[in-house]
């Protein structure tokens, strides 16, 4: 892993840049000459490597192991072209502590080098998409919030946005900003959790303790606001469940200050640490073309240098009113993915500060009695209110026919919700495009050619949440 030099990307001077460009040009010219060089049998007809499409490349590399998953495999039947008899297929997980849940991998090993991999998922499949068809739109949030249990509020958000798009209602500005505040806080807590587990996977147990400690601060605020540390059911179609608690600005100030200060402590603990850098730099590389071909999104895509962040590129809520940077890496290795996530924590803190300042007053949910249940006090006074309350909680509200695909940027990438309504109070089809599910496809490619010992670090850097993968 040695010949890969890691620049920080930002501190390179102008001169170095132009010099590098010239070098690159010279290399390209040299390459072009070599590819059409004359031989004794005429000119060579070669194409530069970069013209190979990602699809072809992937087929050629053949990173994915295509093997039956069942236990009864006759070794003679295995249809793989072995280069020699030295490779062996071993199983990792699903109970392995470093696989972040119940991910199982079948790895083809040549000595200590990983050749092909097959991720096997489904151990946590609980039929949540089917369940979603049985629950009303009011109940739906309690279901989807359990998918990606590290960023439950994003799941609720995408479900609510999809429902609102079908209902064609606009929610009040305060609700939008509360949603944004909670989503950013959730991104911080999710990335902190990732920092913690990634640290542990690389043997830095103190990082694990610190990450969990800071995450607990965010979760304490969630508990104060929503009543629960996880699975909040806070963001609902029509707004949010409750207004922010009194004195929330002070909480935000303490939280932002503490986490920002401590994020610089992580720099000392990990970023500059030689062992950490050795283990992360040039491990698990992926190029931008490969990432796009594999539909990979989120920090993994950004680590390859593609500045694609739905908050910026296809703004939802009120992200277009915030000032923030999209963090990108340059090499698409483990270290870049680490830096992207660490810096995204800081960007989110920046956003939380702006949101705290710009939070508009007003209603926190839409005042449409067909969608939002009436306040408790009204039920005692008004028969209408009582009827609406009863209807909403027994039948739910009806959503016009239609279909919609809504996508937001969750901490793991593009979280999409494809919803079909047939005009009743339950979704006809509710499909969640889980970013972990899709990103996991990059794993065979990331692991290929690497060492077995790095596999744990690579799995961690993909940040799969199995609840969302299996749904």
């Amino acid at each position: 892993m040695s010949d890969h030099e890691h620049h920080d990307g930002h501190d390179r001077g102008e001169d170095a840049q132009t010099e590098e460009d010239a070098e690159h040009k010279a290399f390209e010219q040299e390459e072009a000459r070599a590819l059409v060089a004359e031989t004794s049998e005429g000119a060579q007809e070669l194409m530069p490597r970069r013209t190979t499409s990602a699809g072809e490349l992937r087929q050629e590399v053949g990173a994915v192991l295509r093997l039956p998953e069942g236990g009864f495999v006759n070794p003679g039947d295995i249809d793989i072209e072995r280069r020699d008899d030295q490779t062996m297929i071993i199983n990792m997980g699903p109970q392995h502590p470093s696989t972040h849940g119940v991910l199982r991998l079948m790895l083809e090993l040549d000595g200590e080098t990983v050749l092909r991999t097959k991720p096997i998922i489904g151990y946590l499949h609980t039929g949540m998409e089917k369940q979603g068809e049985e629950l009303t739109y009011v109940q739906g949030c309690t279901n989807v919030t359990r998918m990606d249990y590290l960023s439950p509020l994003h799941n609720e958000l995408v479900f609510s946005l999809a429902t609102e798009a079908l209902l064609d209602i606009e929610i009040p500005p305060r609700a939008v900003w509360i949603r944004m505040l909670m989503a950013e806080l959730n991104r911080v807590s999710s990335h902190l959790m990732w920092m913690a587990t990634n640290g542990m996977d690389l043997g830095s147990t103190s990082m694990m303790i610190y990450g969990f400690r800071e995450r607990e601060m965010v979760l304490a605020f969630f508990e104060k606001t929503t009543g629960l540390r996880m699975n909040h059911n806070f963001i609902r179609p029509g707004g949010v469940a409750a207004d922010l608690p009194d004195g929330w600005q002070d909480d935000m100030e303490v939280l932002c200050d503490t986490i920002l200060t401590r994020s610089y402590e992580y720099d000392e603990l990990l970023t500059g640490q030689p062992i950490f850098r050795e283990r992360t730099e040039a491990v698990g590389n992926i190029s931008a073309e490969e990432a796009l071909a594999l539909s990979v999104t989120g920090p993994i895509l950004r680590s390859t240098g593609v500045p694609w962040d739905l908050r910026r590129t296809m703004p939802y809520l009120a992200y277009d009113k915030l000032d923030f940077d999209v963090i990108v890496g340059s090499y698409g290795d483990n270290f870049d993915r680490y830096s992207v996530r660490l810096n995204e924590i800081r960007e989110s803190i920046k956003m939380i500060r702006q949101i705290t300042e710009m939070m508009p007053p007003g209603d926190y949910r839409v005042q449409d009695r067909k969608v939002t249940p009436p306040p408790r006090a009204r039920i005692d006074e008004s028969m209408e209110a009582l009827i609406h309350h009863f209807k909403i909680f027994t039948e739910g509200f009806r959503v016009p026919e239609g279909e919609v695909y809504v996508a937001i940027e969750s901490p793991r990438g593009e979280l999409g919700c494809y919803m079909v309504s047939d005009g009743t109070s339950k979704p006809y089809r509710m499909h969640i495009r889980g970013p972990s599910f899709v990103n996991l496809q990059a794993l065979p490619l990331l692991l290929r050619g690497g060492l077995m010992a790095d596999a744990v670090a690579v799995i961690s850097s993909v940040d799969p949440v199995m609840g969302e993968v299996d749904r």
Partner: protein
Amino acid sequence: MSSTTSPTSPAGILPEVPRLPDRLVDQLAFPPRQTYKQMVVAFKDSGFETCSDLCAVDYLTHPGRALPDGVKAERFEVVVNLLSLSMRQRVRIRVQVPESDPTLDSITDVYPGTDAMEREAYDMLGVVFADHPDMTRILMPEDWEGHPLRKDYGVGRVPVQFKEAPGPR
């Protein structure tokens, strides 16, 4: 709400892709099954770099959905969401797949990222993607029977006894 619909486009000719102000309104396309893959290739060539999502829907109990003229509603529909980073645009391709022959061309060689998504659509709804490198179940156990997200899939119920059972009289 996706209120704009475009007519089915013949093979190779893309529907016009207007710039839409509302990001929730995606461009829709309804290719016939035979030219679906050609259309996907054409979209890829016109700058849709990545495929965000692929899923299938079973319209068994909701046959009267709104479709543009000339598109015959079938039981299954495969929905593909393509994304263009350069144009900041999404396009949604909806293909009708009949119940009698639920097969469709695989687009894994165009967008390798649809590998797992097509397997999921097969596992959950039983739509078979021809020429997929590994058309096996992905979420359910390999020996599972039936496709759970089909509307006629029998959902098992476990009776729950909330009170103590009455004793023998």
